[in-house]
């Protein structure tokens, strides 16, 4: 139990103190048990206050501190460092959130905000009283990395990892390395040859003795945890055992394979995929021909297998627009008399790739826009495809094109065999079947499994640049992890009371990280937590029938005392606060509704209506109806009534007073 606690309540400039009576609170808190010092401060995070806190801790010999300010996401580290600098353990510090949870959330009832803040702070004091001094967990790490998949991302990552002094095991399922890029000819933007590019990478890979490349190799079994993974690899029937500190998964993607009759695929051999078309362009020299007949007019159909409103492929692969336009330019430059027609939904040649779109327009390529609900239809006449479409750029007029070839611009999908990797490594997989990172923006290459990283297109559609970028991000994360050969982990993990544990196995069943295993201690089976894999999620604690497992910093008495602190009777005096009552409902002063409101209300005949319907009936422009409905909704004159049948518009109805 901590008995010399310091409490600091922050004004946050007014963000908190405008609503929460922090001055009164700091006086009340001073009377709490074990509290030695209680202060209200303008900005707790300011340098001057941090110095003052350190001084207080040292002069008053405080053993724990509580800061009541903003969200712990913002300043936990700030104040843990203050504790460390003052000479107490960082885990003897608790942050209480009285801004997001009190002043901002209850700005309309300042007294209640103050009462809630009082409760939370007392809960925090009780919690810190039960806090323990904890040290980071240290694990010895192997300076070796397994990279799975020797495509452009995997090879590039292997080279950098080796250059930084790590041993690398590069594991490739196929006989040849290079993956999808090696299947390509000329690449967009750089104009390089895909095969040449991957060959160059392979030469580079071979020049590093630290890189062990295994082809025709598959992952058999993975055990262990961060810093110390044991991997069984099957190399052409021989089992190989590897010990690595981290794993980088760069297994890539599959091209979407059109189903039978999708845009005429399979109906005529003149409907081909973009990959087949690229091969055709590459193999022909003087004249572009197919089945010994010249090819002049080419129809490209975009978003095949992507951006579907139903099913797993709802995303956009982003690379395919540029790839198709690049193929069209290549064909135009190589052969004469080529006419290209692009049937697209939206063109996404973002960034510098926009120049390719411009070039193709200059070449005379024609773009026709369709929507998912009215896709082009391919009919076959005399063996040649005829593309029929309602062109949205020509007032949805139905237009036909006699094409010599129809090229289906297919998107990327997750590899059909990707679960053979994700199951073994326990990487979470999204609805789209691609591997999931922890946070798409902030932790884009880490997975929830410590020590397992993802890079390239196994994570989602990426072009080569983006694949290499993400793989290299993985490299820098891995290198930072393994560099010291010791890995420090947060100490907030599950721990087992070996006296009371009877090993029923329930905790191991619910653990999503496979962190709990049975262990024999003094002739009795008990649960053993692998601190390297445990995430401290706490799912095991409530299932234990004997209360034998708990999470550090979240002990049962700790939590119970927090509840007691929060629930204790509070007596707060209402003081003069800085605000006025909110404007009374403006309607009270309104003698009659504006003309447009009356018109809108007259449109309703018992059934809820959408904005276009109201616009039609009232003769008011849709923009006006939208604007007035917003205001009327705010004043409680109308209310939303769900979506219409097509789920394209919100419905509104008058609200009864």
């Amino acid at each position, binding site marked *: 139990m901590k008995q010399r606690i310091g409490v600091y309540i922050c004004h946050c400039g007014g963000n908190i103190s405008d609503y929460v009576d922090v001055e009164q609170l700091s006086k009340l808190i001073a009377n709490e048990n074990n509290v030695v010092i209680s202060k209200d401060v303008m900005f707790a995070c300011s340098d001057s206050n941090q110095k003052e806190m350190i001084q207080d801790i040292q002069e008053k010999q405080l053993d724990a501190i509580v800061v009541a300010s903003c969200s712990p996401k913002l300043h936990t580290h700030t104040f843990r460092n203050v504790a460390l600098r003052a000479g107490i353990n960082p885990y003897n510090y608790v942050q209480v959130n009285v801004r997001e949870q009190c002043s901002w959330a209850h700005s309309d009832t300042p007294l209640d905000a103050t009462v809630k803040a009082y409760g939370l702070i007392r809960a925090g004091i009780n919690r810190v009283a039960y806090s323990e001094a904890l040290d980071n967990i240290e694990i010895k790490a192997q300076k070796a990395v397994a990279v799975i998949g020797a495509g452009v991302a995997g090879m590039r990552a292997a080279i950098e990892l080796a250059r930084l002094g790590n041993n690398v095991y590069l594991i490739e399922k196929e006989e040849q390395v290079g993956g999808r890029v090696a299947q390509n000819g000329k690449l967009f933007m750089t104009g390089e040859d895909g095969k040449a590019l991957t060959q160059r990478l392979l030469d580079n890979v071979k020049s590093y003795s630290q890189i062990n490349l295994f082809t025709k190799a598959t992952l058999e079994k993975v055990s262990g945890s961060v810093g110390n993974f044991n991997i069984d690899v099957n190399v052409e029937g021989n089992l190989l055992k590897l010990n690595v500190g981290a794993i980088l998964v760069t297994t890539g993607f599959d091209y979407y394979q059109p189903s039978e009759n999708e845009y005429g695929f399979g109906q005529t051999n003149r409907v081909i995929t973009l990959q087949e078309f690229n091969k055709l362009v590459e193999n022909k020299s003087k004249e572009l021909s197919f089945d010994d007949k010249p090819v*002049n*007019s080419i129809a490209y159909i975009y978003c095949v297998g992507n951006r579907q409103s139903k099913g797993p492929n709802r995303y956009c692969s982003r690379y395919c627009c540029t790839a198709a336009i690049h193929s069209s330019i290549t064909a135009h430059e190589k052969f004469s008399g080529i*006419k290209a*027609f692009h049937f697209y939904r939206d063109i996404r040649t973002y960034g510098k790739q926009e120049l390719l779109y*411009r070039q193709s*327009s*200059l070449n*005379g*390529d*024609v*773009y*026709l*826009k369709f929507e998912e609900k009215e896709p082009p239809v391919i009919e076959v006449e005399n063996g040649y495809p005829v593309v*029929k479409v309602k*062109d949205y*750029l*020509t*007032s949805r*007029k*139905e*237009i*036909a*094109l*006699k094409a010599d070839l129809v090229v289906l611009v297919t998107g990327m999908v997750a590899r059909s065999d990707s679960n053979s990797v994700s199951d073994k490594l326990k990487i979470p997989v999204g609805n789209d079947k691609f591997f999931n990172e922890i946070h798409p923006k902030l932790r884009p290459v880490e997975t929830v499994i410590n020590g397992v990283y993802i890079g390239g297109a196994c994570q989602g559609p990426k072009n080569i640049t983006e694949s290499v970028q993400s793989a290299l991000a993985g490299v820098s994360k891995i290198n930072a992890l393994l560099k010291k050969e010791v890995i420090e982990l947060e100490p907030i993990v599950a721990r087992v009371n070996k006296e009371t544990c009877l090993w029923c196995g329930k905790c191991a069943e619910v653990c999503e990280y496979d962190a709990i295993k049975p262990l024999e201690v003094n002739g009795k089976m008990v649960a053993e937590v692998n601190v390297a894999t445990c995430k401290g999620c706490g799912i095991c604690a409530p299932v234990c029938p004997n209360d034998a497992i708990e999470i550090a910093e979240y002990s049962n008495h700790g939590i119970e005392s927090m509840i007691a602190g929060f629930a204790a009777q509070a007596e707060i005096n209402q003081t003069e606060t800085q605000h006025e009552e909110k404007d009374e409902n403006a309607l009270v002063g309104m003698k009659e509704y504006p003309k447009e409101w009356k018109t809108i209300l007259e449109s309703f005949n018992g059934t809820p209506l959408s904005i276009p319907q109201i616009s039609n009936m009232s003769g008011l422009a849709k923009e006006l109806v939208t604007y007035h409905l917003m205001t009327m909704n705010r004043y409680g004159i109308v209310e939303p009534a769900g979506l219409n049948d097509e789920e394209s518009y919100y419905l509104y109805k008058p609200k009864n007073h």
Partner: protein
Amino acid sequence: MPTINPNFAEEIKKFGAKDFNLCFNCGNCTAICSLSTNDETFPRELIRYSTLGLEDDLKSSLKPWLCYYCGECSTDCPRQANPGELMMSLRRWLTAQYDWTGLSGLLYKNLWAYILAMIAIFGAVVGISYFSEFTHSELMHIGHLFEMVAIAGVFAIILLPNIIRMWYFTIIKPGIKVNLKAYFLSLKDLLIHMFTQKRFLGCEPTRENKMRWLLHLILVIGYLSLLFTTVFLNWFSTTSNFIVWLGYIESAAIFLITILFMQKRMRKVDAMHKHSQPSDWFFVIWLFLMGFTAFMVRLLIDTQQIDSFFWVYVIHITVLAQWALIIVPFGKWTHFLYRSFAMYFDALIMAKEKK
């Protein structure tokens, strides 16, 4: 269902269109156009038809004639796709479509054909002059006779059938039913637009546009009245001082204004003067030559020098013949008729739609 014509873009480029395939259909041109209305939007729609090669839709459209080429669309196009120049090229292309002889198309697309035709007429005039032994009274008589025959002939054989074809393409073929009364009531639109180009004033009312309209109006009035003065009042042979002075003023107006127009085409400052085609140059230069040589011929007559400078008359009659036999029936002159008839036909369609 209309079928895409992959080769149309190349075809329309032969009529002067530039870079219109850069269009990404933003519609800025239509938004900025002062003449485009909710019922009749352009130029974007026509760029689209041209891109896809929907010839039937283009052929039945009067919209190219509803544009008076202020050039705002080209100036403000974010892709430099030159919508204004495409509209101009569509007018040339339509002229070729209306012309039953097919010669318009040939002359627009092939500069050498144009030049050869001009040379052939020059040769014919010199030949006739040679056979009449360059006696000026006889030649002037032939010249005057030619003017009347040419006007009647060109109108009856070429222009009238072409107007009927235009009517067929835009009203009959698309199946627009117009009652007879509308044909009479809308005649006023025909006359107003033919003689005043009133619609031009609908372009953004800048000083330049107003000036351009005024100069064009003076040119049209000057040209039509000079035609009347020479053909029906027999300017070169008249003894009436009033008619003589009238002719001087009219011909001077023509050659002075055409000098201004030529300057603008050379300076290439405004969008509509940036991309002059040979047909534009022939039109403005020959109009200038007509006014100027007519002025000189009458001046030589008045100063009794015509016998010594009879070649001036031969040049005048050559210019006249080239004008009447090439530029009027197959060249840019026809825009005078097609523009006003487009307004007439459009009034018919609008009258029908209002009902």
